[in-house]
């Protein structure tokens, strides 16, 4: 029997783009649990904009696979959360509908691109949230808002209904205030789906265990190197010591591919974006074109009006990387670098069970602090390697610097999301 609940949050941080005042929900493991969904995930009958003007008013005629699974589990889907337009950003300032604020300090960003989801959970506006992570978009805002966020192994969650930005990198994942709730949400959304050819038959039905006796943890020196705030590094090193005190063993290691990872990531994601975003032509959805102008003229005008600057910049960069005469110079080399990142992870994870380091090189930025695109991109350096390789990675709160939360990142082997979750759980139970 369907039940209803009222949802009228005091959203002073602008976490939501759309809220559902009367929510219907059913029976199941998440019965009546309030879940927010990032606005790049398709919800039947509920406006889905990717925080872009070009999709304003778009009402999807179908549900994303994860949304179907959430409804089947009884979850109460309470609204759609703010984000950087199409997932392109690290602060949620690139939303066409205005930034989300960090619930812990409203002068700071919540991180991005799933900033609305993190802020909604962090501020206690809802129980759980769904985000997507292309280069850190779940883990970064989880770290900045002091919550837990998981980027699952690539293929573990169906991307059917996720409005694509960079298909080979992105995964949908769970966000929560604690590891147990995150684990429960993950068990609902993981599993195969014939409508996503990259999804894999690896469902998740695990109860987090805090026993990490004998766990081997690799600590790459590059995660504590140049560009990482020393105070953040210190808090994370202390967290790793806590894991040692629980019986884990640490081992220093190196990841030489880190030098190339950020370039490999940005060449790949902008290239994929330039192709994916070609579909936003204003014909099948969007404001509609009915002008006597020619196709290219009308199409260009519509996209200039409908896309924000960062989206257009990434489309230009991606078109450039793929253009005749430049392909060998950028895209092809980026794929070699991507292979190096995978090789580094495989080599390190032969010796150790998980890798640990900071999620972000710094605490949440002040609003407007990162105005130069390259400076913004550089802050993704510690999160993009897991996306390039497809391995699972979690961010769990591990302390504070200047009153703002710091995230401990734990990266694991392919399809070993369980161990990544256990490590985070063990830390959460014993740590700060």
């Amino acid at each position, binding site marked *: 029997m369907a039940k209803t609940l009222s949802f009228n949050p005091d959203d002073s941080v602008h976490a939501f783009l759309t809220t559902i005042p009367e929510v219907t929900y059913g029976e199941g493991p998440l019965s009546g649990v309030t879940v927010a969904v990032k606005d790049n995930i398709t919800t039947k009958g509920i406006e889905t904009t990717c925080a872009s003007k070009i999709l304003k008013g778009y009402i999807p005629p179908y549900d994303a696979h994860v949304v179907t699974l959430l409804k089947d589990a009884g979850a109460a889907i309470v609204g759609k959360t703010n984000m950087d337009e199409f997932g392109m950003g690290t602060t949620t300032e690139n939303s066409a509908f205005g930034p989300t604020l960090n619930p812990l300090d409203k002068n700071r960003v919540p991180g991005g691109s799933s900033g609305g989801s993190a802020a909604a959970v962090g501020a206690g506006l809802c129980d759980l949230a769904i985000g997507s992570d292309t280069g850190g978009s779940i883990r970064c805002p989880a770290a900045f808002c002091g919550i837990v966020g998981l980027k699952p192994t690539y293929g573990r969650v169906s991307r059917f209904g996720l409005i694509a930005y960079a298909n080979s990198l992105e995964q949908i994942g769970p966000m929560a205030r604690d590891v147990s709730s995150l684990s429960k949400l993950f068990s609902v959304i993981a599993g195969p789906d014939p409508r996503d050819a990259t999804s894999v038959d690896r469902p998740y039905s695990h109860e987090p265990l805090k026993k990490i006796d004998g766990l081997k943890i690799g600590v790459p020196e590059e995660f504590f190197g140049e560009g990482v705030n020393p105070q953040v590094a210190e808090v994370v090193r202390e967290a790793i010591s806590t894991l040692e005190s629980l019986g884990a063993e640490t081992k220093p290691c190196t990841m030489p591919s880190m030098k*190339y990872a950020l370039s490999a990531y940005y060449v790949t994601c902008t290239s994929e974006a330039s192709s994916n975003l070609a579909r936003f032509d204003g014909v099948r959805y969007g404001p509609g074109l009915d002008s*006597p102008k020619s196709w290219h003229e009308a199409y260009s005008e519509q*996209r200039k009006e409908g896309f924000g600057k960062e989206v*257009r*910049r990434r489309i230009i960069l991606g*078109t450039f990387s793929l253009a005749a005469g430049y392909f060998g*110079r950028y895209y092809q*080399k980026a794929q070699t*670098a991507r292979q190096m990142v995978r090789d580094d992870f495989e080599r390190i994870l032969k010796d150790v069970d998980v890798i640990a380091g900071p999620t972000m090189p710094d605490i949440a930025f002040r609003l407007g602090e990162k105005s130069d695109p390259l400076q913004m*991109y550089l802050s993704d350096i510690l999160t993009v390697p897991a996306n390039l390789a497809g391995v699972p990675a979690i961010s769990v709160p591990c302390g504070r610097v200047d009153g703002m939360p710091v995230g401990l990142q734990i990266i694991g082997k392919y399809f070993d999301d369980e161990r990544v979750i256990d490590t985070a759980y063990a830390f959460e139970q014993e740590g700060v």
Partner: protein
Amino acid sequence: MVTAEDVRKVAKLADVGIDDSEITEFTRQCSGVLEYFEILDTLDQSKQLIRERYNILREDEVTPSLSQEESLQNAGQTEKGFFKAPRVM
């Protein structure tokens, strides 16, 4: 690194439109990013890429999909059950 002309040309290829007022900013920012990408030129390219990629295909059977009405519901302009788009020629 890249000139204003390069950016103008690529923006035209990508149909994203660009104003004269934006061209200096976009050229400077794209140059900065592309210069950063030059680190890739120092990579050892001799190693063969592992290509463990294969297609996932299914039988060519009719499966449920959107109705014509649902497909058209978000279109700005329709005519006689079709999407209406600007002229191409």
